[in-house]
């Protein structure tokens, strides 16, 4: 981008014009930078802005084409959860003042809520999806968790930095924070967190814990 060189031009015959330089003027420079910025944005932003998905030629992720129309970062195989997640003996353990263990069928028989929330990854992609599941605040009310409680979510993952995470009551009590069982009209696939995963608004994708095993009040 070395636009400020001063090379004489031989094209002109008049004496003063012979010293004309080929340096890019301010307007030319700004226009070029503008075109490059707008162009690159248009060709990559579709990985996080749904409206631009048709021009997403170079974004590392795509809005469509993924299993259940949602990209995946960590697969069930990578997380080594497959046996535990498909075990019929799986239960979601809830711990407040009392405790409870619910099977997937029992979770499905509770009142279901549908929300549209994105997985917004810190890597830069963001894809919206339709989730159906049980409100976390309703679930935790069944085990007498205090309304202002801070909650800890733990995954079946045997290890990994994000196998567990905590959320404050501002998220836990929100009406769109769910233990999700369905994604875009189908049961969660194994790679998307079957049997149950967390989905909450306004949090990065790594904190939307998949393959939930336990939700408890932080004491």
């Amino acid at each position: 981008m070395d636009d400020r060189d001063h090379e004489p031009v031989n094209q002109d015959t008049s004496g003063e014009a012979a010293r004309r330089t080929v340096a890019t003027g301010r307007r030319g420079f700004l226009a070029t930078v503008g075109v490059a910025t707008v162009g690159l944005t248009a060709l990559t932003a579709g990985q996080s802005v749904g409206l631009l998905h048709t021009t997403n030629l170079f974004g590392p992720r795509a809005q469509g084409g993924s299993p259940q129309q949602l990209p995946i970062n960590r697969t069930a195989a990578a997380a080594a959860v497959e046996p535990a997640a498909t075990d019929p003996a799986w239960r979601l353990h809830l711990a407040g003042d009392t405790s409870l263990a619910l099977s997937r069928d029992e979770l499905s028989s509770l009142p279901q809520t549908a929300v549209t929330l994105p997985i917004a990854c810190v890597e830069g992609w963001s894809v919206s999806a339709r989730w159906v599941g049980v409100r976390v605040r309703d679930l935790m009310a069944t085990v007498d968790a205090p309304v202002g409680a801070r909650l800890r979510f733990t995954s079946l993952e045997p290890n990994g930095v994000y196998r567990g995470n905590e959320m404050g009551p501002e998220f836990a009590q929100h009406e769109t924070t769910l233990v999700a069982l369905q994604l875009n009209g189908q049961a969660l696939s194994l790679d998307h967190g079957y049997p149950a995963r967390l989905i909450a608004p306004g949090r990065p994708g790594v904190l939307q814990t998949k393959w939930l095993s336990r939700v408890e009040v932080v004491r």
Partner: protein
Amino acid sequence: MKVLRALGLAWGLTAALGVLTSRRALTRYAEGLRAEAASPAVAPPTAGPAPGPAVRRARLVFGGIGLVVLLTGVWKVLHAVQPASYVWLVVWLLGAVVLHDAVLVPVLSLLRAGTHRGLPALPEPALALVKAGFLVGGLLVLVVVPEIWAQHLGPLNTTVLPGSYARRLLVTLAVVAGLTAAGVAVVLRRSRTSSPGSPPT
């Protein structure tokens, strides 16, 4: 690994001091070059009037803030990166310099040498278009080539890097080249039909 952290901090401190002390010399050197290019026959540039105490104080304050920010950055990086990965941090930092000096600059120099004769003969708007085309294309290559490389290494799963980026890059570069050529053609035709001989503006 505390030793490594201390070494890193010492390196950051040295770099900061280097920036602070060499900035002035570099500025003066650049000014000298500029003056020489503008009027090579004129006497060497004279130093401007010495800065007043207020200016000096302001410079000290800004310099101090810069130093604190720089050191905080180094300290934070050394905490964010595991000590075992410090080597990769250095490789990453030096890699940018090596890539710039060993790859980018030679390629651009060759490009410039190759186009040195033909391009300046173009009218200025056409030349600006050609430069813009090269810049846009170059940026595109810088963005997409790492993706192609990562794809070659093998993505973690099928939803990562799902596109055929190499093909898309070639097509997009062809489109950029085509648009640039079309723009140049329009400019050339205009400059030929309007007053020939006078420099177009």
